């Protein structure tokens, strides 16, 4: 039985993987496909996208017409289970009450974690992104370079399926020929943004998203992904055939029952289970990593949430993939005589240098897009194009006043109306009703464009998490307390984003509401709000200045690894998940190698 209960765990495993999202899913996939025996522990409930994705449900069948509420922030049909900005019974705290000094933490409690409802935007870090300090003297260099990671980006893209194009733009790497899937055609508003962005110097190119625009090549890819491993190739080929291509309808955030986009539950876990090497225990909240007298990890202690009882499981290796901050929490709660400050914390850096993505948005109304003849704009359930950062030269020349870049994601078109929205005043400032309301609704619907900037935050010593001295969760496990601070680099970047977006909207012949503030501290989204939190167990080349080495292996406890974004030494503007998966794969390869050599 692959989905087991706490009474039926094996006596010992090769590897325990904590978490089942991008990090845990990729780690378990790589390890089991190569023959290791793995136990995956997931704090949330079992979740099956094939039967639980409300793909075509219309908002008139949902409470409040599908509006976002504090219980379902991204709308009723969003796939998130058991989480959001708060998780019942699992609090966290902030040191400060100021908006710009607080961290907000999105979690979910389900098999597959946040990969069930993420945006599927899958960008590679570029060569600059691994060596930022060498370029501008700020933050940290990674102990690895783009060349170390690129073979793993190739593998992840081939496995999960990512659409996009190779444009050869600066610090925006190409994938090898035949790796990316063709992107969908641009929508009308996306074409307009592309045309009007060009004179402003903004390149609009195909988005990279983990969506199958065509079926995966099950004949050729498995051999490239698992060379020399016939069993893995056979399992993967069969699994690829069971993933349908996107049918160009429905919001990916609701989950994809036909397995056309990447969710850990549709891409990583099914083939991993098919190997027979994976046991999954859901509703298992890991509290701490246990160690023996020699300081080696022996396994983990967890709470079975269905019974409230505590259990222990053993393994040769423990991999933490609970999400950057949650993995920090587990390490800091793993206190023993040998490790009084928490596990792997001899540097004192566990929990330090938490980063999120810098985010701000700006909207406009575009008369050219009014009253367009109805045509289907659903597409791939998300953006078809985006703009990578384009001002490297100006930034190098010191003309921008902030050190790192951002990319632009945007939304246009006649997407399915759902949830609350204000219709605003009419042209006379009055509230339309009757025939005029219908006419205006038809005219303006689909004539809006919303730009969002996604920028690089520089790690700083004032953005960190630690164990709260008092607060505990409902099982009595101490919880995290956050401290947060932005620097001027981020504020100035946000001001630049909004000014650029307002100019862009004007270039599209549109109008925005108000004028952007030159003070970015007013417009910046709170720390954590973009849900790209990384850092806290950063990798480096010295045990004194980092938590893990270049293999995401903790310096202090060689059989404990971190597979999630915790190891990021910087947080490029590129959304983190593709990099999390590439690094998790690389780490799993290393674990396999070291186990074979008898070092683990």
């Amino acid at each position, binding site marked *: 039985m692959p989905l087991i209960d706490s009474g039926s765990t094996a006596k010992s495993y090769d590897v325990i993987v904590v978490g089942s999202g991008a990090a845990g899913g990729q780690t378990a996939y790589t390890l089991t496909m190569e023959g290791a025996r793995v136990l995956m522990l997931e704090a949330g409930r079992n979740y099956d996208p094939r039967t639980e994705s409300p793909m075509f449900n219309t908002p008139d069948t949902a409470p409040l017409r599908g509006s976002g509420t504090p*219980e379902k922030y991204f709308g009723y049909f969003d796939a998130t289970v058991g989480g959001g900005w708060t998780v019942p019974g699992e609090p966290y705290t902030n040191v400060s009450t100021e908006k710009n000094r607080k961290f907000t933490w999105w979690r979910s409690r389900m098999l597959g974690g946040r990969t069930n409802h993420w945006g599927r935007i899958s960008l590679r870090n570029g060569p600059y992104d691994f060596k930022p300090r060498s370029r501008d003297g700020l933050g940290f260099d990674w102990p690895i370079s783009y060349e170390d990671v690129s073979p793993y980006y190739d593998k992840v893209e081939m496995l999960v399926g990512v659409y996009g194009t190779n444009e050869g733009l600066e610090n925006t790497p190409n994938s090898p020929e035949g790796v990316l899937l063709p992107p969908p055609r641009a929508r009308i508003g996306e074409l307009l943004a592309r045309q009007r962005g060009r004179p402003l110097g903004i390149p609009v190119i195909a988005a990279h998203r983990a969506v199958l625009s065509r079926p995966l090549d099950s004949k050729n890819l498995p051999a490239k992904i698992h060379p020399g491993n016939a069993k893995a190739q056979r399992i993967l080929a069969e699994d690829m055939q069971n993933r349908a291509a996107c049918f160009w309808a429905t919001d990916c955030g609701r989950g994809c029952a036909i397995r056309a986009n990447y969710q850990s539950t549709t891409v990583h876990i099914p083939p991993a289970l098919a190997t027979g090497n994976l046991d999954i225990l859901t509703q298992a909240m890991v509290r701490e990593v246990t160690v023996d007298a020699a300081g080696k990890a022996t396994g983990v202690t967890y709470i079975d949430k269905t019974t409230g009882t505590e259990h222990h499981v053993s393994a040769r290796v423990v991999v933490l993939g609970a999400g950057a901050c949650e993995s920090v929490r587990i390490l800091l709660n793993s206190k023993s005589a040998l490790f009084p400050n928490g596990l792997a914390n001899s540097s004192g850096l566990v929990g330090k240098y938490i980063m999120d993505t810098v985010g701000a948005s700006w909207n406009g109304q575009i008369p050219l897009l009014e009253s367009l003849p109805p045509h289907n704009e659903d597409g791939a359930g998300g953006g078809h194009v985006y703009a990578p950062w384009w001002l490297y030269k100006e930034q190098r020349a010191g003309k921008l006043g902030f050190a790192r870049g951002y990319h632009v994601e945007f939304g246009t078109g006649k997407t399915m109306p759902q949830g609350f929205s204000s219709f605003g005043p009419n042209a006379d400032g009055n509230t339309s009703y009757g025939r005029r*309301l219908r006419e205006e609704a038809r005219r303006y619907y689909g004539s809006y464009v919303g730009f969002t900037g996604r920028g690089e935050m520089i790690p700083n010593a004032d953005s960190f998490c630690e164990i709260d001295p008092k607060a505990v969760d409902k099982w009595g496990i101490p919880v995290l307390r956050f401290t947060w601070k932005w620097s001027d680099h981020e504020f100035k970047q946000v001001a630049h984003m909004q000014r650029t977006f307002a100019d862009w909207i004007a270039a599209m012949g549109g109008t925005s509401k108000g004028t952007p503030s030159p003070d970015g501290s007013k417009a910046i989204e709170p720390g954590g709000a973009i849900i790209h939190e990384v850092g806290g167990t950063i990798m480096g080349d010295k045990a004194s200045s980092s938590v893990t080495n270049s293999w995401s292996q903790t310096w202090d406890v060689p059989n404990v690894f971190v597979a999630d974004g915790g190891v990021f030494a910087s947080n490029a503007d590129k959304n983190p998940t593709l990099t999390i998966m590439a690094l998790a794969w690389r780490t799993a390869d290393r674990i396999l190698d070291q186990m074979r050599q008898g070092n683990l």
Partner: protein
Amino acid sequence: MDRRLAIKWMLAASAGVVMARNPMLGASNPPGIAEPEPPFGYGKDSNLMKASKPGDYWPLTFTELQRRQAAVLADIIIPDDGKNPSATSVGVVDFVDEWVSAPYPDNLRDRKIILDGMAWLDEESVRRFGRRFAESSEADRLVLVEEMSRSQKAEPDAGSSQAFFRLVRDLVGVGYFTTPVGMKDLGYVGNVPLATFDGPPAELVAKLGLVDEVKW
């Protein structure tokens, strides 16, 4: 994003993401105190596959009188236009009732605006025309609605009858255009599986002076 600041039909422009208020942007708690958990409505793990109707997750609270007034208002805001049915015929009154009866903070705030506004509207109607709003003549009702619609302000003053009407109008509009009937009227033609995604029609691309120059 505070949804109050959303301009017009903004939800169409944010790639399907309809956000509530992030509690972190709201009032601050003392340091070291966790954000409060939201009041329980449908919970964080309801059965998403199951169709629900207003009243399934929390009781509806409109009185018979309030329902009648809401129905009259809804059909003035979106009447049958000969081609498309009116607001009441697609369940908009139930939706407004569900909205003002919901336990979440935004809904509690809106509840006060709506219930106070409805009480005021009946009083005003009795004062000027001798009858409650729902029992007044069509001409008398329209006089009141027309007055409430004239805000001349992007955001009508809080507590004014104009602010009340703006909210009622938005709720009726949302309730209507999120139904299959309303979506059809708007010209939303998606939510159907397609074998290929062909992008915008070529004539439209040409008409807007665009080139589908994207090389893929």
